[in-house]
């Protein structure tokens, strides 16, 4: 087990199907994936566990993902936390806005299968 496998990854996603899917794939690769089912919960959990990497959905029922991103990034503990926006929303200027708000990367979910997402997450953790 490499050093990275101990690192904390938090998935903030309100769709249960996706949480289920990513949870299984990450554990298949030896990662323990922390999960939050909405924006508010995500903020609370990230404060609690101080993850190394956050995979953040944008379109959620309770909160706008961009607000979640800004909120977490404004916290001291999250100074070195890599937050990757993982969404299906492609909107002109949105990626730029996310990145300028502190997002480490911007992924379109439907373009990647879960395995590829895991590989990407590994890359982010190594960097």
């Amino acid at each position, binding site marked *: 087990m490499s050093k990275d496998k101990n690192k904390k990854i938090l998935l903030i996603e309100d769709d249960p*199907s996706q949480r289920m899917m990513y949870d299984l794939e990450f554990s298949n690769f030896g990662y323990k994936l922390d999960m939050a089912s909405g924006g508010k919960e995500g903020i609370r959990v990230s404060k609690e566990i101080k993850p190394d990497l956050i995979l953040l959905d944008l379109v*959620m029922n309770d909160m*706008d993902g*961009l607000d979640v991103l800004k909120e977490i990034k404004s916290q001291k503990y999250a100074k070195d936390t890599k937050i990757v926006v993982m969404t299906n929303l492609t909107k002109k200027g949105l990626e730029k806005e996310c990145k300028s708000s502190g997002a480490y990367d911007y992924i379109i979910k439907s373009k990647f299968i*879960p395995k590829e997402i895991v590989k990407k997450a590994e890359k982010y953790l190594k960097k």
Partner: protein
Amino acid sequence: MAFTNIILTLVLIINTFFLYMLNKKDNDLIRVFRFVNIGIIIWTFPILIWFFIDNKKILFILGIIAYWGPLLVSYSMFRVACLFPVAKNLFGQKTKIFSFCIFLIGILITLIPGFVLKEVGDYGYDLVTGVGIYLFFLIVILFALASLIIFVIKYFKSQGFYKYQLKYLFFGFFISIVIGFTSNAVLALLNTYSFVWIGPSITLLFIGFVTYSVTRYRFMGVRLIASKIFFYFIIALFSYIFFYFVYFFETWFLGGVLSSQSLSFGFVIAIIFAFVFLKVLNFVQKSSDTLFYKGYNPRRIIKDLVLRLSTVIKLNEILKQLFKEFKNILATDEVDVVIFSNNKEKKYSGTREKKLFKNLLINSKDVIYKKIYKEKNILVKVELDKEKDIKLIKELEKHDIEIIAPLVSHNKIIGLLILGKKISQDAYNQEDFEFLEIISTQAATAIENAILYKEVEEFNKNLQKKVDEQTFDIREKTDRLQKLLAMRSEFLDIASHQLRTPVSVIKGVLSMMKEGSVPDDRKQEFIESALSKSFKLEEVIDEILRASEMDSDKFEIDLEPIDLLSVLKAIYEDKNVLAKDKGLKFLVNLPKKLPKIMSNEKYIKHVIRNLINNSIQYTPKGSITLSVKKIKGFLELHVKDTGIGIPKKNLPHLFAKFSRGKNAVDVYTDGSGLGLFIMKKIIDAHPGGKVYIKETKVNKGTTMVLKLPLAK
């Protein structure tokens, strides 16, 4: 002797010329002034022919006639003094008759044998006078003095150019009287007759004064004639002097005009003369222009004016020029120019009543109107038939109109030039008419051009306005199009999101299954999840299609009376299962009978289903309640849930096409963004229909109301 004859002949010619000129006009002053001239001629003529006659009887009669001359001149001058500057008898009818009586007495006493003149002297060049000569001279001097005094009085009472003219009249007459009286009366009393020719000749000086003063009126006709007289006189004088100079030179120094020296000298002189003559001609022409026209001659004035009129394009400028020239050339202050454009009269300058112009424009019964429109020619008051046109003359007099010159362009009267009396009270002469004819034609063209120019200008302005309006329209349309385009792109953004979300799950699940990443005991769970997402996908596709179908302003649905109760029952059957699956209670609170509503079953089912779906989606626990209310021609369907509620910030946007907040990602995860939009479109197609949130509290629940019209 020869010199006397030349001078006297000149006097006669000039006077006859003057008489001819003055004959044309017709007012009291001119008529009286004519007598001054006749007087001068009567005075001159006997003296001129005196030495050619040796019959003493005829000479005696000639002598008497010659005495009448100064009397007539003197008397006429008195009358001129009374009438000038205004042709109104200043001293009334009595003075007129009284002075005429005295004049008659003067004439009569010369006819009393031996009273004034006894006989022709022995030598045939003198007249033996009687006692009456003193009375006669007294009458002449009285008239002369009276006129001089009147001139002086009037001089102090008048202003402007009248004063100026009075001055000339006074001095002209004064000098004539002094010299004439001395040469003719005083010397005659001393029996000296060799200077008698000076009397009438000196009146030339007087005529010169009068002419000059009159020409300063800028009285066109007189000015022209005076300048011609001046021109020919100077040229004749020059030639005369030159000729005699050469003649005497050749006779005295070169041995006669026919000597060979003279002939060759004459040739040289002829060349010099030709050269000098041209120069003199030019010089005289110029100085006569300067003297009489202040540097202009009539042809040049007209040419200049025409040129100016044709280059000026602004109406006001043209009129300004016209007024100026009329005042200068015709010497009238009462000028009105009326321009008719689009059945509206426009009056410029002048003092006449506005009513007149209106009449001239539209009143076809107006006598002036009739005449002008019939003849389309210059209307001159004094040329009208005094019996036939009596009405017209009266009408013209009422408005102080002397001349009306229609401005005719393309055989259409576009305006009128209305002229009043001349400042001098003189009548208009032929030169004036010619000037008017030329100018009115030119002015008509110029004015029409100006009007056209103005119209074009206005048209341009209107055009610019229209262009601006249309540009504004286009800009508005562009704005709307741009908004529409923005909406389209949003639509695509959200639609693609709604499509990708289920796809990402289906794709993910399938890829994991393929790779064997899903353990057997969880396979069922994963497959169900993928399947459910595929249903969702289909739903999204349907909604996108429906949304695009409705995304036009012209969206209409066919409304018919339908039974809401049966619709609700069908939906209840359907959705109750879904609610039960989620552990929710689905309550309906419906009456047994409901009046029919105006709606469309297919569409209204979609709306209600959506509302209930939403409620179920956002209600984690508790219940959904359906109830119906009847309110004033409407049915209200209430969908109440105990769900999460809608955050306040989302409320205003809820029914926007793609509800989104400030951060651009407020998309309803399940596609209700599209759903709400569709709902709103459908409800809007119902007259008076409404869908709105009656009440919402976060974590307490929401009540949605659907208001639909009853069938009539």
